[in-house]
């Protein structure tokens, strides 16, 4: 990074650290924080959408859809997250390959499963044979988002379902008395009011999602925790920057990062709750009303 970094072993301390903290591995470490933040910002809306679909399915009077919703929510909530993170990418990846295999190579006569191996024809490989490293990264990142969204969507679904039920029944009855259909009452009365009931639950799920991001390494993505472990481990004189076991410092940095992230979100959710409580028939809404009156 700096011109004087050619031979770190003879540098004074501050220059050694300047070089050390800007080494190739450290730059990768800093990038991994961005990956974590990117994953959070992509996963949250997808999980929210999954959750909304799940909640609507749970409310549905049409039995098959209701059953699908119930099955999804209960199954995902009942299985340890880590199992899902291991299962989804493999099952989904092989599922896609299996489908593509049957589309592209209908006259393939050898079995797909041979002993331990899962073999599909060349054209059915996902990501395709010869895909760039960039495309593969996007693929594994997408798999991670799908796995996270599936797991957290189930929790969101239950929270949103509870929030929809919490909107006072009298409001819906009034809406119906004005001649609104079930769908209209839901859209105009339940939807705008449910968020304030959903927020505490959603904020919980969001905090858990933040804390789950280290599971990324299971999916082959090198996240901040992986790099902290790798960089902090003792380095022998074989390396350019030998040092003893410094993991405790690196984990301290992670601790600060995650605390900062959760602290920021806590404030964000506080502001949202305040904003959404205006004019609501809740204790907070009452308080706001009295203050302005």
């Amino acid at each position, binding site marked *: 990074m700096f011109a004087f*970094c050619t031979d*770190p072993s003879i540098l004074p301390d501050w220059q050694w650290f300047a070089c050390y903290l800007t*080494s*190739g*591995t*450290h*730059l*990768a470490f800093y990038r991994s924080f961005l990956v974590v933040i990117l994953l959070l910002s992509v996963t949250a809306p997808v999980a929210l959408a999954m959750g909304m679909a799940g909640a609507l399915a749970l409310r549905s009077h049409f039995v098959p859809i209701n059953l699908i919703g119930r099955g999804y929510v209960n199954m995902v909530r009942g299985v340890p997250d880590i199992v899902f993170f291991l299962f989804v990418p*493999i099952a*989904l*990846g*092989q*599922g*896609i390959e299996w*489908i*593509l295999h049957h589309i592209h190579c209908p006259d393939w006569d050898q079995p797909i499963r*041979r*002993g*331990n*191996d*899962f*073999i599909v024809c060349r054209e059915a*490989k*996902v*990501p*395709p*044979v*010869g*895909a*760039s*490293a960039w*495309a593969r990264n*996007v*693929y594994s990142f*997408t798999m991670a988002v*799908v796995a996270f969204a599936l797991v957290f969507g189930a929790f969101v679904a239950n929270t949103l379902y509870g929030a929809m039920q919490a909107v006072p029944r009298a409001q819906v009855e009034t809406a119906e008395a004005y001649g609104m259909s079930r769908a209209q009452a839901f859209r105009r009365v339940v939807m705008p009011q449910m968020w304030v009931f959903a927020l505490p639950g959603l904020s919980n799920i969001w905090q858990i999602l933040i804390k789950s991001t280290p599971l990324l*390494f299971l999916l*082959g993505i*090198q996240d901040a925790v992986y790099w902290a*472990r*790798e*960089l902090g*481990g*003792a*380095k*022998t*004189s*074989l*390396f*350019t*920057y*030998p040092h003893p*076991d410094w993991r405790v410092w690196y984990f301290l940095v992670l601790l600060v990062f995650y605390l900062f992230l959760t602290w920021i979100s806590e404030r964000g959710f506080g502001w949202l709750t305040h904003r959404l409580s205006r004019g609501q028939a809740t204790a907070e809404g009452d308080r706001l009303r009295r203050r302005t009156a």
Partner: protein
Amino acid sequence: MKRLMLTAAVLAFSAAAASGQDVVRMGTEGLYPPFNFINDATGALDGFEIELGNILCERAGFACEWVVNDWDTIIPNLVAGNYDTIIAGMSITDARREMISFTEAYKRASPSAYMALAGTDPSVIDDGVIAVQSNTVQAGLVAEGTATLLEFPTPDDTISAVRNGEADAVLADREFLLPFMTDSGGELEFIGDAVTPGDGIGMGIRQSDDDLRAAFNAAIAAVKEDGTLNELLTRWFGEDEPLF
């Protein structure tokens, strides 16, 4: 719908992929110097196996890409097709042959060594607590003996365990331990040797991938023949390393 979109997205990426040379994905651990590690100055993979792997790929006419994977899941991910070879200091053993196949060895079975804090009685080899990396030949060796087995997911953790007294000694490849001992200024020392079982170190390849195995076997034979491999072995492991 989601699956459909994903498929469409993935297909779109493939359009950008260049055809031509076969891309072979090489799986490694990146935590086991001097075999394979991440160069702390550049952030790129480095080590004996990285250099050798690139040479082998060049000889065999493959475009190689490197993938870093946890040691514990390195075989399942090969079988699942996440990469095409394992080149990670893996000893060729019969137990592993049941899961995957191996190329010819590119390094002879290297001696393992017990390393402990200076002054530790060598009898801990038989009745002490021995730290090893899980799923290694050394783990198997300790499990068969009388000492207590203490397993860790990364090689680094095994050294820490000895330093902080959790384990009496660590058993690992001698080449991996040597820099730790010389750097420690007398704090750590070797207290005994052990013979590493297995038929040397080779590349792991899926059992069904016969063509790939044949291609790498030919490349390995070629580098053995012209002395390239011996030069690499001496440079990375010192003069005492047995050559081909």
